[in-house]
């Protein structure tokens, strides 16, 4: 319908943001791309007393690589920035691919990686990709800056009051890395019913030497599947999921209790997650196979 009233601030420096977050009174909401926050404001499911707009903080938009090749992405980098950036496409193609899966172009021109991580929708693709890529985050807190694994910051219960996500750090892809992300949604696009991301590392003999597999939409946060990953190691790229690894996949997913909603029950969700995992693994393996195999 219409948003409730709020105080609006558009600071131009991180220090100013910090002051607004640390002052006494109700914690303000942070406005990044607004693609998730605005619907909540308009529906009045969220009624913050104050809004701090991060749009004027230029450093938060930067996408850079450090000396050791690590990708450093500002929290206000948009989905389209991730899709288009040559740095992201070469160092973390999974992230660029995940960004491209977000529903609408017009949403991708405003939505940000930081907003996505903070909103933490279980169905979202970026958090899943970052889990697979083993990303770190740098967060500004009331006590100063903190850097650590995304998985340590992700659970809302573990976040400190007044956290402001600053940067996402992604280790670079190796020369023998391949990744894939697969999802299924009630329409071709929109919130995923199930989504799986995979990263494989192959060797020159056509075998898998490293694997990370994670699923979204089946739990409140992306879930890594370490048993599947372990079962993949040593498997041939030509047939990554033989019957044993496939059985491990089924077993590991059967331990989950995926949610039910209008579009899909928990059991269906689990089943299609299994299917997507198989397809994502096969796709990544195909990419790694020495030519001609």
């Amino acid at each position, binding site marked *: *319908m*219409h*948003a*409730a*009233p*709020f*105080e*609006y601030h*558009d600071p131009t420096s991180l220090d100013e943001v910090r002051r607004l977050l640390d002052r006494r009174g109700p914690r303000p909401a942070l*406005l990044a791309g*607004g*693609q998730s926050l*605005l*619907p909540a*404001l*308009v*529906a009045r499911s969220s009624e913050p007393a104050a*809004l701090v*707009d991060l*749009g004027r903080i230029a450093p938060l938009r930067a996408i850079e690589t450090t000396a050791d090749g690590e990708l450093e992405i500002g929290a206000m980098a948009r989905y*389209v920035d991730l899709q288009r950036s040559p740095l992201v496409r070469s160092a973390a193609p999974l992230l660029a691919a995940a960004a491209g899966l977000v529903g*609408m*172009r*017009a*949403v991708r*021109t*405003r939505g940000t990686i930081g907003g996505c991580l903070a909103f933490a929708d279980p169905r979202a693709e970026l958090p899943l990709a970052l889990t697979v890529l083993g990303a770190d985050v740098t967060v500004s807190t009331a006590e100063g800056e903190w850097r650590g694994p995304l998985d340590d910051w992700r659970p809302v219960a573990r976040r400190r009051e007044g956290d402001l996500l600053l940067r996402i750090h992604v280790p670079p892809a190796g020369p023998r890395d391949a990744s894939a992300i697969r999802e299924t949604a009630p329409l*071709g*696009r*929109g919130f995923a019913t199930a989504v799986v991301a995979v990263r494989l590392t192959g060797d020159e003999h056509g075998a898998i030497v490293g694997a990370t597999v994670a699923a979204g939409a089946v739990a409140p946060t992306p879930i890594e599947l370490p048993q599947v990953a372990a079962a993949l190691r040593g498997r041939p790229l030509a047939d990554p999921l033989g019957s044993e690894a496939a059985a491990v996949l089924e077993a590991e997913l059967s331990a989950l209790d995926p949610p039910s909603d209008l579009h899909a029950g928990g059991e269906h969700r689990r089943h299609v997650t299994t299917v997507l995992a198989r397809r994502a693994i096969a796709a990544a393996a195909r990419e790694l196979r020495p030519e001609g195999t």
Partner: protein
Amino acid sequence: MASRTTHFACNGESVAITVDPRTTAAEAIREQLGLTGTHVACQTGVCGTCTVLVDGEPVRSCLMLAVQLDGSTVTTVEGVGADHADGLHPVQRAFVEHHSFQCGFCAPGFVLSTVALLEGDEPLDREVIRDALADNLCRCTGYQAIVDGATAAAERLGRLDPPAGGVDA
């Protein structure tokens, strides 16, 4: 709460509007600038009837605050045909010729999404166009005529690669 004045360029003119910060860009465009061609239909970014161009890129004006327009260049549907013969941009003309719309409510959003697509440099064919147009909802047409119009506009503007194909209905 305290009003804010926001300055931006809209359809080639400088504007300054004073708004309650909780006003969305769509609301401000419609009610303060009187540009009612931009429509609101879902308030969740799904339908695209509120699409405008901000700094050349399509955005959902219902998911932006008016104050976020500050310093930007905005194009609404009213600004698209301005410098063209008979007030119709080639995209608009193609839509008219191909019977692309029926009730017309979704038309401005499609016009802007298509203009943005054709002004970009992404290689286009009918299927890429159809996929891009999935950004906007239409409840009346079943989309064939819209894809026809957008593809014809792309061809006219030399943006099709390879040349148009598709079902003749």
